[in-house]
């Protein structure tokens, strides 16, 4: 099946001369959760804004479910719901009025039952008559989501959805994203919180300085670029790593009580089993050992460091 969103050769240079995007190519698969990661100013929001029609691109083409975003903007835009990063709502409108306004704006006939369901799902029903200005930050964020969902989009953009949001709401949001995915909605989220992408995403894209530097299945990415570390608590402190173990490039902690072995899944470094045999042979005894996988965050930081 063709991808639901196809971005090809998209560049954007602002009037100030700043180039925010350079020849970006990206395809989003139907029904996936795609996490777009990148440092501040990498071009994430510009890319989303172009797809949603908020910013004109300098070159390239974008199609949404086969509809060109310019020639066939009505069909393209009506498929998309956008939750922007900033909390921007008409402060004097009531929750009910503003969500219904969004639905009307996208050309959908009034459907109070559906709007009620959206508000209930986001725990906003009690506040339906409250003015937006009286809501807390977390509620405003949920209101923005309700507005984006009001017209039943097939693609949902969440631009930094959990920035400044407390833990409980963050988990509610993840739950909501999973439910939407079950309904077949494609979700594209940008985030600083990489653990969020790690927990949610099917695929991950990394953007830096306006260029997509990597797009990969999340599990594959973690397998390929992930590293493992094994830490051994020693019975007796060592002054230095014994000579016989030099090929493992072990790190000894300052107090001499801990040895750390870092290896990745693809390297040609010898396996853990041979290390343990060699430790025994060298007379090093340990009380306990612990292994851990590197997180997506570490992978991400390493990727950006490798960039020229």
């Amino acid at each position, binding site marked *: 099946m063709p991808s639901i969103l196809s971005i090809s050769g998209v560049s954007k240079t*602002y009037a100030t001369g700043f180039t925010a995007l350079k020849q970006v190519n990206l395809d989003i698969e139907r029904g996936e959760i795609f996490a777009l990661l990148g440092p501040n100013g990498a071009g994430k929001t510009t890319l989303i804004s172009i797809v949603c029609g*908020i*910013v004109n691109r300098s070159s390239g083409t974008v199609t949404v479910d086969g509809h060109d975003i310019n020639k066939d903007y009505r069909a393209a835009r009506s498929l998309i719901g956008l939750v*922007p990063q900033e909390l921007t709502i008409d402060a004097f409108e009531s929750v009910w009025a503003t969500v219904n*306004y*969004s639905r*009307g*704006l996208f050309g959908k*006939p009034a459907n109070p039952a559906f709007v009620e369901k959206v508000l209930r799902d986001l725990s906003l029903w009690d506040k339906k008559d409250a003015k937006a200005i009286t809501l807390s930050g977390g509620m405003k964020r949920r209101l923005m989501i309700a507005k984006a969902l009001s017209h039943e989009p097939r693609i949902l953009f969440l631009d930094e959805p959990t920035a400044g949001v407390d833990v409980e709401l963050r988990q509610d949001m993840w739950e909501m994203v999973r439910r939407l995915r079950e309904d077949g909605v494609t979700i594209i989220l940008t985030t600083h919180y990489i653990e969020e992408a790690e927990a949610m995403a099917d695929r991950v894209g990394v953007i830096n300085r306006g260029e997509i530097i990597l797009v990969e299945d999340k599990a594959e990415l973690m397998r390929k670029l992930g590293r493992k570390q094994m830490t051994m608590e020693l019975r007796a402190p060592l002054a230095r790593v014994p000579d016989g173990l030099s090929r493992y490039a072990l790190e000894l902690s300052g107090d001499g009580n801990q040895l750390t072995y870092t290896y990745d899944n693809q390297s040609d470094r010898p396996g853990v089993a041979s290390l343990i045999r060699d430790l025994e042979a060298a007379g090093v005894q340990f009380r306990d050992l612990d292994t851990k996988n590197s997180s997506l965050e570490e992978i991400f930081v390493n990727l950006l460091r490798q960039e020229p």
Partner: protein
Amino acid sequence: MNLRAVWAIYRVEMARAFRTVLQSIISPVISTSLYFVVFGSAIGSRITEIDGISYGAFIVPGLIMLSLLTQSISNASFAIYFPKFVGSIYELLSAPVSYLEIVIAYVGGAATKSIILGLIILATASLFVPLHIEHPFWMLSFLVLTAVTFSLFGFIIGIWAKSFEQLQLVPLLIITPLTFLGGSFYSIHMLPGIWKTITLFNPVVYLISGFRWSFYGKADVSVGVSLGMTLVFLGVCIAIVAWIFKTGYRLRN
């Protein structure tokens, strides 16, 4: 045509007018009444008649135009500037709405409000002076045409403005002087030679003159010219709006 979107925007705009009913309706009524007290009674007692019309009645069309122009501009400019200012314009830009629909909704909302206001002022005026409308059809036509034209003009200002100061700049520095010098309170025939000619470069003169003609059948300039000038200004505003949308000027850049 996404009529639902047009209706959604229009309704929000009208709802805002009712939320701020004090500011949008009552304050113009009060200021009109004050004009009548100051100009109609205090000055009018010294100027008895202009073109055979009592001074109090003579200033009514000018007063309505004065409010119509300033309110159309401020309604429309604020309506589009405010979402730009708070950022909620993202939603409008990302919606399946054409430029034409955006203009119809915002300009329609602003024009409706100022037309209602014009009629309220007319009703208020009728409490002070005996009114007589010779050409009701043309009176309404001038009212609607002017409201639409200046709402479009306000829309342009709202898109152009980058700050609240700029939003106030054009109405304050250009529109208000032009209106006061446009013959609201006097006939341009009362001006000395050269000033009469200079006045003819003021587009507001044509609006007020045509509007006054629809009331009393008397005008400073011929009604055909008035209508023509109003349509020219409408055409200019439409052309600018079309250019704004074509280029994405200050909206999609």
